[in-house]
């Protein structure tokens, strides 16, 4: 089942605009009730749905360049919804929603085997080694629309699906079936002070994301935009998060290349 008629929510992140300030991470944690610990510096066990990576071009001083790369869940479509994490989950605790293109995580079904974490090539999925604990009074600022997660389950970026549900309910009550583009936006998109993140329905020609990464049928469906790329595209995960960069070394950093491999790829 292909989902041309359905919605396919995706994100375009312009790395030329990203300053690496981390506002997207903070907004995400506040929106999605992501807890913090006294020492959260071990990034392998620290839970963060959005993470900003710092890339360098590997050239010696003074030719060193840096680029910040925010990484939400890639919401992989794979082939016909066979995203890497969904395929391996023995508990059906994660599924690919054909009507939105969003990969879910159902905390109450997850029993913490962490197959999905091993399968995800983007380190998007994270395991709760501890029960969440907020400083006193801060529990009052938790988002009532997002459940907190207990020790022993996996969690990940949901593209703020609760906002989609709320917006859809509101639209339905008003007798509308379709949402406007600005009625459903993720927390990171709205928080970014540089306007580097654009979010919307990739299938809707009226949405900005559709125009930014419009596919080129003569080029295997790759975006016409020469600045566009996706992470580890060659694995066939078919992510719905696109990146833009005018710098070639950044675009090449999005995938693994063996030494001396033709530089014509993604040029």
């Amino acid at each position, binding site marked *: 089942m292909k989902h041309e008629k359905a919605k396919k929510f995706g994100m375009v992140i312009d790395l030329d605009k990203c300053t*690496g300030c981390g506002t997207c991470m903070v907004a995400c944690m506040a929106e999605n009730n992501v807890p913090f*610990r*006294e020492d*959260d*510096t071990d*990034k392998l066990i620290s839970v963060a749905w959005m993470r900003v990576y710092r890339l360098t071009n590997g050239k010696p001083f003074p030719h060193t360049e840096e680029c910040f790369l925010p990484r939400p869940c890639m919401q992989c479509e794979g082939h016909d919804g066979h995203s890497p994490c969904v395929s391996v989950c023995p508990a059906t605790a994660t599924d690919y929603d054909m009507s939105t293109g969003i990969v879910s995580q159902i905390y109450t079904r997850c029993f913490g085997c962490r197959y999905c974490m091993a399968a995800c090539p983007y380190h998007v999925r994270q395991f709760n080694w501890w029960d969440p604990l907020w400083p006193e009074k801060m529990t009052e600022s938790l988002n009532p629309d997002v459940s907190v997660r207990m020790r022993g389950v996996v969690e990940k970026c949901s593209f703020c699906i609760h906002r989609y549900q709320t917006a859809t309910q509101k639209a339905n009550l008003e007798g509308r079936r379709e949402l406007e583009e600005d009625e459903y936006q993720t927390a990171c998109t709205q928080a970014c002070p540089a306007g580097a993140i654009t979010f919307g329905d990739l299938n809707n020609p009226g949405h900005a994301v559709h125009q930014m990464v419009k596919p080129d049928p003569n080029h295997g469906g790759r975006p016409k935009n020469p600045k566009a790329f996706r992470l580890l595209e060659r694995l066939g995960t078919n992510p719905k998060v696109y990146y833009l960069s005018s710098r070639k070394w950044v675009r090449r950093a999005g995938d693994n290349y063996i030494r001396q491999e033709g530089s014509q790829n993604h040029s």
Partner: protein
Amino acid sequence: MGGAVGNAFAWDSYEACLGQTLGDRWDVLVEQGFWENTDFSQGRWADAFETDSSKFEFAGSQINALPAYNPVSPPGDESFYPLVLVPYDSMRLASGYIGSPPFLIKALEATILKGNDVLVEVNPATAAKYGLKDGRQATLSTPRGKAVVKVHVFDGIMPGVIAIARGLGHTAYDKFLAHKGASYNALSAVVEDPATGLDAAWGIRAKLGKA
């Protein structure tokens, strides 16, 4: 802005003002986030000014307040402190009087804070010269004090210079911030510029050795 002040301006908003005054460049800025002047070529700064410093000098000739250009060196004995420690501001670390809140500490890069240690940026050439390894603890000392830090080997920092992020080493605030890392302020010293009396040095001589 409203009333007479608002009416005095020809534009409805600041954005409209920018759009009109920048013209085509504004559209490019909105579209790609930056605007590049392809016609720009850098001036020949080395011989742009016929002053002692080869730089722009501004002084009253009547009072002769700038008799000569005297470069100010960072404090410390170069033979004992071969490196220069400079501070830098990270976008993800509050460096002023107010400390970073817990979400921001969590969002801090692993190249700035690891455990309770701040990482200092060291060029690969400097690291090789002093036998320092990436991620390992080291002792950072200046004429003003000592701190335990971790080494972040990074090409982006000049050889011979060590950079430390501003905003750590607090003794105040909560357990998420207090007693993490080291503060540049505790390691730095002031050098007075003889002409102006202002603090003139950016950085201090330092030594970085295996912990």
